[in-house]
């Protein structure tokens, strides 16, 4: 028994080491940096400033604004992704011809690198040549000649639309996995008891895929809270679409060698981390997920 435990320890070691290097070290370093004031310029002197960076964050209107945008983006896009993803999963869970092909094709939006698909969508939202602009005009959503990506309000919805297009398939695949492990006998029993399709969905399917949806929700929320590429490519944070990660790019990149902003940028990163933790905690509590 003792020997077995030792073997297990040895086998865990590579994984633990890898996680430490790629996850714990950068995380720790970011926390550490957030208590200092310095830049990446050669010869810059590190100065310990305690919680000053955090105190400044709480008074930074641009940070507060980006925080609101990020939460709005996350809540709306993850909501639509979950609902549409569940529907999509239910559809491809049914047996029909070419099901394998449909399941594979469905993943295409998710497989295209975001930077590329966002550029593609930027062109489709172009005010003169863009097909999305045309479609929105025909549907009466916008006046002819409205630049969707140049209008406060509209631009954020366009970005949410692109994110939903891109990540709904990912949600669907995760939820599909959850659907597949539900034993068929449960449905048979429900039928015998006279449950209709709605009852079967709300009383059997939904409770049994809740843990899966919970995990999928956490994945998506974490991603959405640090959204960068789709926003940066489509609007560069203009017209009220700046998110925390886009603001952080500005602090870390544009101010990397000037001023002493790197600690401040690290504090923004930590703030994103805390925000993610809050969301994860809420999900785990409200959905009563168990991770053991």
């Amino acid at each position: 028994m003792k020997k077995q435990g030792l073997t297990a320890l040895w086998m865990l070691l590579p994984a633990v080491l890898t996680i430490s290097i790629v996850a714990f070290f950068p995380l720790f370093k970011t926390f550490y940096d957030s208590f200092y004031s310095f830049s990446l310029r050669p010869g810059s002197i590190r100065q310990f400033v305690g919680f000053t960076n955090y105190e400044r964050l709480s008074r930074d209107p641009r940070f507060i604004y980006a925080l609101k945008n990020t939460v709005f983006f996350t809540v709306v896009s993850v909501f639509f992704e979950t609902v549409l993803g569940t529907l999509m999963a239910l559809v491809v869970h049914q047996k029909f011809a070419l099901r394998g092909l449909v399941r594979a094709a469905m993943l295409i939006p998710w497989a295209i690198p975001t930077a590329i698909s966002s550029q593609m969508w930027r062109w489709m939202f172009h005010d003169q040549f863009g097909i999305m602009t045309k479609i929105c005009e025909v549907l009466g959503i916008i006046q002819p000649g409205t630049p969707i990506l140049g209008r406060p309000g509209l631009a954020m919805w366009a970005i949410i639309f692109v994110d939903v297009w891109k990540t709904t398939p990912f949600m669907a695949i995760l939820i599909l996995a959850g659907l597949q492990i539900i034993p068929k006998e449960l449905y048979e029993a429900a039928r015998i008891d006279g449950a209709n399709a709605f009852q079967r969905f709300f009383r059997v399917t939904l409770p049994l895929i809740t843990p899966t949806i919970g995990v999928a929700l956490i994945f998506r929320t974490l991603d959405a809270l640090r959204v960068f590429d789709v926003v940066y490519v489509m609007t560069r944070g203009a017209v009220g679409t700046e998110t925390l990660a886009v603001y952080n790019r500005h602090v870390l990149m544009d101010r990397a060698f000037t001023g002493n902003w790197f600690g401040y940028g690290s504090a923004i990163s930590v703030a994103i981390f805390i925000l993610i933790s809050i969301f994860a905690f809420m999900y785990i509590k409200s959905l009563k997920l168990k991770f053991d």
Partner: protein
Amino acid sequence: MRKFHMILAMVLTVVMAFSVKITMTSGGVGKELEILKKQLEMFYQIYPDIEVEIIPMPDSSTERHDLYVACLAAHQTDPDVFMLDVIWSAEFAPFLEDLTKDYDYFDLDEFLAGTVKSVTVEGKIVAIPWFTDAGLLYYRKDLLKKYGYNHPPETWDELVEMAMKISKAEGINGFVWQGAKYEGLVCDFTEYLWSFGGDILDDEGNVVIDRGNAAVKALQFMVDMIYKYRISPEGVTTYMEEDARRAFQSGTAVFMRNWPYAWSLLNGADSPVKGKVGVVPLPAGPSGKRAATLGGWNLGINKYSSPKEKEAAKKLIKFLTSYHQQLYKVNSGQNPTRELVYKDSRLKEVAPFMATLFDVFINALPRPRVANYSEVSDIIQRYVHAALTKQMDAKTAIEKLANELRWILEE
């Protein structure tokens, strides 16, 4: 046979030992990359022992900036040769090889004074000017003639009048420019600002943008072109250089503000407006002054490269900035930085406007020369764009812009 192999191996080893491989970054706008590759072929004929690998970069200057920050902060030894925007000299100077003692090796005396100034940081030369840029006005010769205008606009008011008349009658846009929130917006904005008699910083580096009302008027004029005169589509607030060029090239605009690179593309074989385009200096503002923003790119050497790579890099830069190569580079619409090239008759054949607009290029004005330019630019971009998208009025935008500039520059 075995002997032959051995000799071959030995020769290869010797060649490998003496040859050096360097990397350089390059943009790929228009014909830029194609021309550079041809130039490298010529370079290999003179220096067969140097191999150059090109790292193509994104079109947008901001993304190139971020790429460099990541490389430089990590003290990477690659790329060896950096293609640097004129606005970055001060910011990246600590990471660039000091070329002050090579002033004569690169014949910097023969270069346009403005371009040499753009690579000088605290008295040191940190890069060599490769090509220069200045904002220009492109216009449709055929349309102006059709509506009875025998000369391109001399003032902004004249441009508005012509654009309103022609765009209404033709059912197309009047004037396209760069209004998206990015570096290009700063270039466009400063041109209006200067031609309306304002400036961002004075010679001592004090913020003077809110002194007098030139800035408010200039910004209001930009807003009015979109919403009042309606000569620019609202979508101009999402346009970068290539968006504007595509709109103009497809024949849906009368005027366009853009850089010299657009010329060769507008006159390409597949261009619908080929031969119908004229190019002139940007119109004058109420102050009677015309102004063009100085753009352009310089070549600098990575401080962390090995001495051998630095030597090869110097040879490459000297070659690319030589008289003949600058003349050749005109083919991709990139303006020489050597004064004498403008007087060469071969330049006039390829790009006649470069010779006639020589004054524009030597008088182009630089954006603020400060080490934290990226921050300054971000502030200008945010407030100018907010005014263009009607999130605040021009007066408030300039006030807030000035306050933030003061805050960041006094930090």
